[in-house]
């Protein structure tokens, strides 16, 4: 199934897309920084009653420990594991180096999280060589600059590249060309597809669909009538058709941060407001780093009373600002005002903020009014705090009320 090598390796490829994903990222950073942890099962995550595993080293995974597993369960599976609280500032620092490496390989990089990204390598052959060579080079550069291991999948479509990087783990590189793609996909279980969660999987299985091949062989109209528009979409994916382009992050549509609390919080809880301020800071920082501003701020809350099946009611409230902003204080004020509008009710399990309706900030043409007026104060404060965070980690200096529970770090969702 592996192809590539010399010459016009990508003739017939509509696009060349790489998905690079760090192996056990947080745990690997801990093992990198603390040599005594190397070769040992390391679990990064919260130890509180509701803590979850954020990242597990390969040594720990051998015992069945997985990310997103309750910490208590992980401890049962692997009692000798070393539990480490996450150091987001440090991970972000490594992620920045990682991003710089990615940027050297492609002008269009779409980060999915701190430690994984799509790279559009279409046309890169002329400059950097055939895809397999680029992949090897990328792995080498990441290892050299961060000391960490990345797995890479290369395919003509996003969906396949992501599956490949996952199959390549640990420390692997896999490539599939367009002609081999349908056959390769056909053998994979259908839950490998993006968008197939527990509920969809159960329904697909009920319909006798277990592999992507099963799905691809079905009649599109039948799938549509049975599963709606998503049925037709999954059918396309299963056939290896995925038109989604790699979207560079300046073209992204929104920024989001959210976290699940260790204990459900009352709607007027101080900790809830603190979390929102921390999310605002994280979003503001990312907006500023990317030189964009957001006009619309959305507050997202999940209430504690479940609907069953692991689902919870979601409340969202949005506000559109008069002018787009990248100021933490503006985002936080807006989010807190939205929270006040939500009113009383069930306790809150999860809180998040999303910033969308993005505008590109013109970095070359400064604004007449900003240089002179109050806005400049906020801008200078943001700049100073961003600089401190860059140097000492995101939690070195925080605004009033922002210390969120460590068990539940602000999690980037978009």
């Amino acid at each position, binding site marked *: 199934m592996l192809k590539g090598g010399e010459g016009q390796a990508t003739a017939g490829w509509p696009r060349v897309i790489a998905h690079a994903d760090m192996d056990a990222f947080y745990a690997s950073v801990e093992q990198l920084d603390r040599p005594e942890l190397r070769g040992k099962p390391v679990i990064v995550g919260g130890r509180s009653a509701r803590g979850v595993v954020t990242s597990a080293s390969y040594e720990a995974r051998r015992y069945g420990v997985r990310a997103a597993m309750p910490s208590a369960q992980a401890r049962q599976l692997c009692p000798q594991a070393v539990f480490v609280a996450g150091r987001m500032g440090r991970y972000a620092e490594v992620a920045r180096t990682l991003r710089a490496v990615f940027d050297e390989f492609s002008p269009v990089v779409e980060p999915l999280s701190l430690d994984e990204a799509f790279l559009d390598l279409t046309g890169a052959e002329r400059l950097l060589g055939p895809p397999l060579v680029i992949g090897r080079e990328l792995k080498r550069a990441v290892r050299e600059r961060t000391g960490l291991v990345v797995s890479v999948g290369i395919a003509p479509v996003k969906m396949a590249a992501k599956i490949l990087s996952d199959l390549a783990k640990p420390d692997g590189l896999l490539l599939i060309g367009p002609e081999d793609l349908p056959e390769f996909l056909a053998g994979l279980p259908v839950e490998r597809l993006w968008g197939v969660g527990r509920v969809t999987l159960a329904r697909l299985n009920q319909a006798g669909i277990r592999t992507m091949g099963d799905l691809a062989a079905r009649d599109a109209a039948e799938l549509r009538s049975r599963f709606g528009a998503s049925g037709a979409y999954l059918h396309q994916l299963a056939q290896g058709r995925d038109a989604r382009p790699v979207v560079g992050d300046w073209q992204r549509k929104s920024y989001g941060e959210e976290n699940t609390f260790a204990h459900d919080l009352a709607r007027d809880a101080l900790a809830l407001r603190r979390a929102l301020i921390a999310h605002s800071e994280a979003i503001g920082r990312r907006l500023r780093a990317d030189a964009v501003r957001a006009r619309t701020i959305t507050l997202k809350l999940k209430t504690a009373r479940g609907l069953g099946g692991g689902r919870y009611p979601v409340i969202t409230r949005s506000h559109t600002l*008069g002018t787009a902003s990248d100021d933490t204080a503006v985002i936080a004020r807006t989010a807190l005002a939205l929270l006040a509008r939500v009113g009383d009710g069930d306790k809150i399990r999860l809180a998040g903020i999303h910033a969308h309706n993005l505008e590109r900030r013109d970095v070359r*043409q400064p604004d*007449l009014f900003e240089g002179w007026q109050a806005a400049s104060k906020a801008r200078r404060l943001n700049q100073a705090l961003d600089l401190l965070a860059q140097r000492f980690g995101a939690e070195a200096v925080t605004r009033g009320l922002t210390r969120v529970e460590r068990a539940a770090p602000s999690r980037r969702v978009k």
Partner: protein
Amino acid sequence: MELTLKRTDFLAGLAMVQGIVERRNTVPILGHVLMHVEDTALKLAATDLEVGIRTQLPCAAAKADAQFTLGARKLFEVVREAEGDTITLKTLDNDWIELRCGRARFKMMGLDPRSFPAMPERNADGAARRTAGTLTLDAAVLAQMIDRTIFAVSPDEARYNLSGVYLESPAAGAARMVATDGHRLALIDREAAGFTMTGGVIIPRKGLAELRKLLAEPAAETTVELVLDGQLARCRRGPSEVSMRLIEGEFPDYRGVIPKTSRFHIALPRETLISTIRRAAIFSNERFHGVKLAFAPGTMTVSSTSPETGEASETVEVDFHGDEFSVGFNAAYLQQVLAVLDDGPITLGLTDDVSPGVITAETDSAFQYVVMPMRL
């Protein structure tokens, strides 16, 4: 009902309302012109809800007092392409209209005239009407005030408080217009006998542009009155009137961004500056239009470079004494202001590469233009 019009009159009236009718077809009636036959006049009205235009022309009608609407663009095309001196309109059933002109005959479908929206001529109930006043000026003077500010209005709808020209009375008997897009700012003062107003108003760009067109129309009277009334403004000239809804919002404190002093004052003829910048800008970046002004004792060098296409530079002699320095500007921001000024000496007031520059003209001492440098 049947009426007969002079084709050229009709064409002129329809031309006047073209700018206002909605291009997009989201609300069909906004693409229509409302016509009302009253005695021996045909009254035309068009609006996009924010700006409205009324005009009228003489006609001979068989039966007066009829109302109907027609799509403004198609009607304009028909009248423009038609032959002959007169056009005859005849109302048919179900809002259909027949037009006859020369040998040609057209049939157009109108909409129910009763569904035509109200013109922006009425304040909302209970609206605060603190800003009210009447600005009486020579039409040419008002036109110049508009010309020297409107180009600096922000095209960004999101910055709604900058999407119009600010008008205020800085002192009794004086009128001031200010426009800015956040990167540059134009300010003009003129004497305006009898004009006083508490606070200022923001006149939307589109309405002001229509007003500017109106001022260019030939008319018997030389002065015009711009009436400001709460949320509205209107101006009549000859048989036509423009009305508009003002922008509700706070205009930024523009006084704070006008430098009180500049370190260097460099004077040079307008024509020299225009042609030098035009040549230098050929190789400026398409998106940012940046040009560099580099000063050394006795000279100014205007240059642009583009890594992909090439570079240009031109040195002119100027009266500059001081340490060498250079500053970058968006060439378009310089060209646009120079285009609306009269020939004569222009002064560049500059301090360094990050402070706003000030452009003034000897031919208009009551005009100021402030422009923020860009990083090149």
